[in-house]
């Protein structure tokens, strides 16, 4: 495993104002993720797991501090540059799949390529479908597939633009155990064989066992670390 940092958070502070009072989520937090890592982030609701994921993906901005991801300091990028950067470097997998119901599996997977103007879109979509073992379901609509299959399509969509970092927000939260294991194995495959750095937020200890490292987040602080692999 390379130890080159793909994520480097420096003195990150993030909070929100409620009832006129500022409530801190992160206070001068520092955090690094190495290239090729597979990290599970666990913690109670409100601990800042999703906020952390949003900061890493450039979906949300920190109040202060520096966010370096895949060699770019993203907290200073304009909205449009951040959008372009995100499309190229980040793959997202959501808990509820978030596939567009009006599009087939293949078209859903093609979406990130659409805004990048990438050539050979069909080839790349077909390759992504092969990786998630859904080559024969490309023309199926989301409502014609099981939850597990939909999540595999979502994973294919996340990897089709060959991103550096996969951010997964409770990817197995809506799935039964068998489907969850299937998805987690796939993430592990992407991490192992395709050298994708994976950051996964989960409540499920069994899911966390698939990761190389598990970080426990509570009130904006990593309170415990354990090596799973």
């Amino acid at each position: 495993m390379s130890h080159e940092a793909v994520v480097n958070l420096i003195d990150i502070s993030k909070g929100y104002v409620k009832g006129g009072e500022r409530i801190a989520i992160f206070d001068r937090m520092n955090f690094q993720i190495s290239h090729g890592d597979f990290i599970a982030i666990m913690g109670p609701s409100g601990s800042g797991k999703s906020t952390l994921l949003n900061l890493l993906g450039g979906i949300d901005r920190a109040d202060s501090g520096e966010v370096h991801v895949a060699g770019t300091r993203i907290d200073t990028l304009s909205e449009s540059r951040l959008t372009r950067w995100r499309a190229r470097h980040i793959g997202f997998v959501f808990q509820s799949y978030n596939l567009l119901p009006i599009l087939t599996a293949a078209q859903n997977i093609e979406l990130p390529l659409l805004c990048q103007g990438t050539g050979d879109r069909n080839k790349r979509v077909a390759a992504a479908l092969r990786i998630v073992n859904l080559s024969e379901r490309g023309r199926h609509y989301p409502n014609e597939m099981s939850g597990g299959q939909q999540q595999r399509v979502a994973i294919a969509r996340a990897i089709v633009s060959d991103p550096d970092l996969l951010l997964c927000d409770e990817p197995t939260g809506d799935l039964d155990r068998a489907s969850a294991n299937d998805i987690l194995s796939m993430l592990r495959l992407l991490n192992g064989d395709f050298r994708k750095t994976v950051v996964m937020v989960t409540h499920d200890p069994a899911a966390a066992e698939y990761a190389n490292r598990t970080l426990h987040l509570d009130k904006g602080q990593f309170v415990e670390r354990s090596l799973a692999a």
Partner: protein
Amino acid sequence: MNVLSLIWKNLLRSKVRSALMIASIMIAFGMFGVLSAFERGLSARADAAAADRLVVVNKIDYVQPLPLGHYQRVCAVNGVQSATHLSWFGGYFQEPKNTVTAMAVDAETYLTVYGSDYVVADDANKAFLRERTSALVGAELARKWGWKVGDQIPISSDIYFQKNGSLSWTLTIVGLLQGRTANNPTNFLVFHYAYLNETRTFGKDTIGWIALLTGAPERIDEVARMIDGMFANSTNETSTDTDRAFNRAFGAQYGNVGLIVTLVIGAAFATILMIVGNTMVMAIRERTREIGVLKTLGFSRRTLLNLMLGEACALALAGGVLGMIAAEAAILCLHFAGAGAFSQLTLSLAIVGEALAIMAVFGILTGLTPALRAMNIGIAQALKRS
């Protein structure tokens, strides 16, 4: 797949909703097409009149008659090249519901003044001058009733009746009047004033109005002043104006058509704008989470703006084009059903061009609010929406 196919798929997402919105827009544009054609038809008819033609009417109101003697005096005015007189007959064919626009004219001079608008075959004109009970029938009117040259037609009046007690005048069709342009309506007939004047029970030696040519448009003001001055302080004062103004005044008897059309169309568009705009806002609000996903996947604010505006414009275009097709169909139906009465109704290129511009504005107005909202909503906030 491209942005256009994405717009198309979004439109098909809720087929019933899209169909209803398209139908609403279609109705508004259908009304726009028909009413605009009607308004333009009236204007075109007025504008088609010869520039040097003046019309002399009774100053009290154009429906009040003038003494026939006025005609001879007008003919003698310096600057009057040629003149004729016309009288409204208020005709119908067989039954009062079968209205026929019929005018009693001075046969000798009618075509010298209106020859720039209508053409009649030479032999037909000669026959018209020869036979006192003859009539020249506009081509549209003849087509409507299936009349042909040689037919004898009973035309009754809702103003006059004959001295012999008869309600109808039998006229022999000797020729057809053809408009020189599409803006010269042919939904009327003319017959001899002498025949009417001799047989009617009242109104003898009165005429409806006088039409004249000055030969030079620049002389119309001077000639009009001279004519009205000549009859000033008489029992039948006159009001002389251009034929165009006269036609407009005639059209204005239905009210201010332009204003009515504008108000009706404006109300229709404003209502549909609010309905469609509100529906678009709701439709796109339902997709807030998807918008968050698209942003996450790298769709720029501009692409999303184009997507939303494209969707609204596509709806407006679909409804608008269908509306214009419906308007054209309605106009064709009116042509068949009403014969010459609607011969001026045409869905001109200018109306179609205006409609396309309105479609674009309509699409932008209905799509702008939800598009801006989609553009500006934060991803994290959008993704939280269920």
